[in-house]
């Protein structure tokens, strides 16, 4: 079950995120700053799923941006082409990602290491190319989406639609966080940890390795899909290049930056990678170099991510004292 410490952190997190827009709104141009937290929100959603996959199931995926694209285009199909409510768009996004995630997880999760990375990278690229060549969805020029409307509640009717989107994504994030924390502290979570450390040993203990891996993979693709749908509505426009290979790499960097065995770390990772470009000006064409450098430095010097810094410091002090 979820630990007391986690409950405390969760409530703390909830209160902070709830009041953040209020604080931000008191600044000049508050809407813009709240607007920054919406992309942070939907990247967190994908990254949380990816964290379970990378950190707990020990698999890697360089194709999650592709699943975000699937989610986004599901919403386009339902809302733009058919004219139904956005909720059906989310439903289709979940369904499609469930089916596609399930089908490809069968062959793909048999692979390990570099091969798995290459295969998922390929899937991401294939999805991107299909969306570019599909003229029905506007091809390379992209396609627009109507306002996000859930029942009679139109998100764009707000003077600052950022408020509505902010609370939507962060509420979802809160739920997924609670779910993940519950999950990793359960029997299944412990099984996954065993799987991460040694697949063979886990298998010999009677853990159904394939089933767990498939479950986590599909779960993470579904989260990516929802996140893609919300992102598309928020931008009111979707392009095949909105979520490209760069996004996939960024997502993996976020997870690793925060620490793979720590769910809270993911939040840090996303936050840092999204906020720094905002503060220092955009990286633009250097983004690839910066992300690559961050990834290498973290993997070399802080394999457990930023959240392991306090522990490391403590150990250093301890050593000096001793």
């Amino acid at each position, binding site marked *: 079950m979820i630990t007391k410490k986690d409950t405390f952190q969760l409530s703390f997190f909830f209160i902070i995120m709830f009041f953040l827009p209020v604080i931000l709104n008191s600044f000049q141009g508050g809407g*813009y700053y709240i607007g920054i937290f919406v992309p942070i929100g939907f990247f967190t959603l994908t990254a949380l799923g990816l964290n379970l996959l990378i950190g707990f199931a020990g698999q890697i995926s360089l194709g999650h941006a592709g699943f975000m694209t699937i989610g986004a285009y599901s919403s386009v199909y339902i809302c733009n082409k058919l004219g139904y409510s956005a909720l059906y768009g989310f439903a289709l996004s979940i369904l499609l990602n469930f089916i596609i995630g399930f089908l490809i997880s069968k062959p793909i999760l048999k692979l390990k290491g570099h091969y798995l990375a290459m295969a998922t990278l390929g899937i991401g690229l294939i999805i991107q190319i299909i969306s570019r060549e599909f003229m029905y969805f506007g091809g*390379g020029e992209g396609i*627009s989406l109507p306002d996000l409307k859930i029942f009679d509640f139109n998100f764009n009717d707000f003077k600052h639609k950022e408020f509505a989107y902010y609370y939507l994504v962060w509420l979802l994030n809160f739920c997924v966080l609670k779910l993940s924390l519950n999950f990793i502290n359960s029997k299944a979570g412990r099984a996954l940890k065993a799987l991460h450390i040694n697949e063979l040993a886990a298998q010999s203990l009677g853990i159904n390795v394939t089933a767990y891996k498939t479950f986590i993979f599909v779960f993470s693709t579904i989260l990516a899909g929802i996140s893609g749908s919300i992102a598309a509505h928020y931008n*009111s426009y979707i392009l095949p290049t909105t979520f490209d290979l760069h996004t996939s790499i960024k997502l993996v960097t976020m997870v690793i930056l925060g620490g793979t065995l720590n769910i809270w770390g993911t939040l840090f990772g996303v936050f840092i990678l999204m906020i720094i470009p905002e503060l220092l000006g955009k990286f633009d064409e250097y983004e690839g170099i910066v992300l690559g450098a961050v990834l290498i430095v973290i993997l070399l010097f802080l394999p457990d991510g930023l959240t392991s810094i306090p522990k490391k410091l403590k150990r250093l002090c301890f050593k000096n004292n001793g």
Partner: protein
Amino acid sequence: MKKILGYFAILLMILSLFANCAKKEEQSAPQVEEKIKIGAIFAYTGPASFLGEPEKKTAEMLAEKINSQGGVLGKKIELIVKDTAGDPQKALNAIKELVQKDGVVAIIGPTTSGVSLAIKNEMNNMQTPLISCAASEDIVVPIEESKWIFKTPQSDRMAIEKIFELMKEKKITKIGLITADKGFGLGGAKQAEKLAPQFNIQIVANEKFSSEDPDVNTQITKIKSKKPQAILCWDTDKGSAKVIKSIRTMKLDVPVYMSHGIANDGYLMAAGEAGNGVILPCGRLVVLDQLADTHPQKALLKSYSDEYMAKYNEKPNQFGGYAYDSLMILVEAIKKANSTDKEQIRSAIEQIKNFSGTAGTYNFSETDHNGLDKSAFCIVEVKDGKWVLVQE
């Protein structure tokens, strides 16, 4: 104790929500500012930089000039220019930053049709006027979805009508169509397909090409097999140069018509000798020297051209002209509205009539957010690597 704390927290949350709502109303009240902030988004890097760079330079030059003449409504204007690199995602981020963080009253640009279409919804959502410098008619049509969107370049529909009129005169009935697979090209293809029946023209071949194709020989071979009497190619300078080179390589010997999107020296440079013989409708800036002195647009075009030459030591092109018109129309609207309120500026633009710009004479209305008609075009032919005026 815990319960009380819990209730207290919930109460705080509800209160803060109310505080937010109240805040929103306050913000909508007009603020007194010393400067009028105007946003500009152009693709001055990336594949469309040949169009975006003169736009940026023109807008900056013009803003400086307006300020040196005392500004607008007694206030200086502050032009905040952002780069889109032709990337819709960057453009979306840029407009959010301009409107929400910098608080601009309106935005001019972007450079390309694809980007304009991508940010259309968002501009309507943010209720801020946008005066686009891109040509596709879809940017301002349908009018219900373009409440806050205007544009200065001549529409592709009018350009194609003009070309079809020429074809009709020359008794051309079968044409081969080749267009880019992106914004401007796609818009042109759509309009050509729609308009062709009205002029008794049959499109016997309809091919697309991507900016990544090294050449378009395959498409031209296909078109050649259908034996068209003329070719209509729709893209901006670089793509069109590629097409004309392939047409010459494949020895397809029929008249070639192109869009006003190639009317800059970038096309002449990229196409070289192959580029000769192409006929196109375009604005009058490229043939400024050949215009009769009595032509109503000549004085304005000449003053723009001279100022640009003096400042940057290079020839301006029509794309800079679109930026010139966008900013001038916006300034005129602010003067007319006597206010920097977005809604008032928007309706003031709709009231602008008989406004002389570099691309033509603008007559905006509630249903026409482009304001130009076919008279904004002259017909130009490329001869010996130069633009030659055929019909004024």
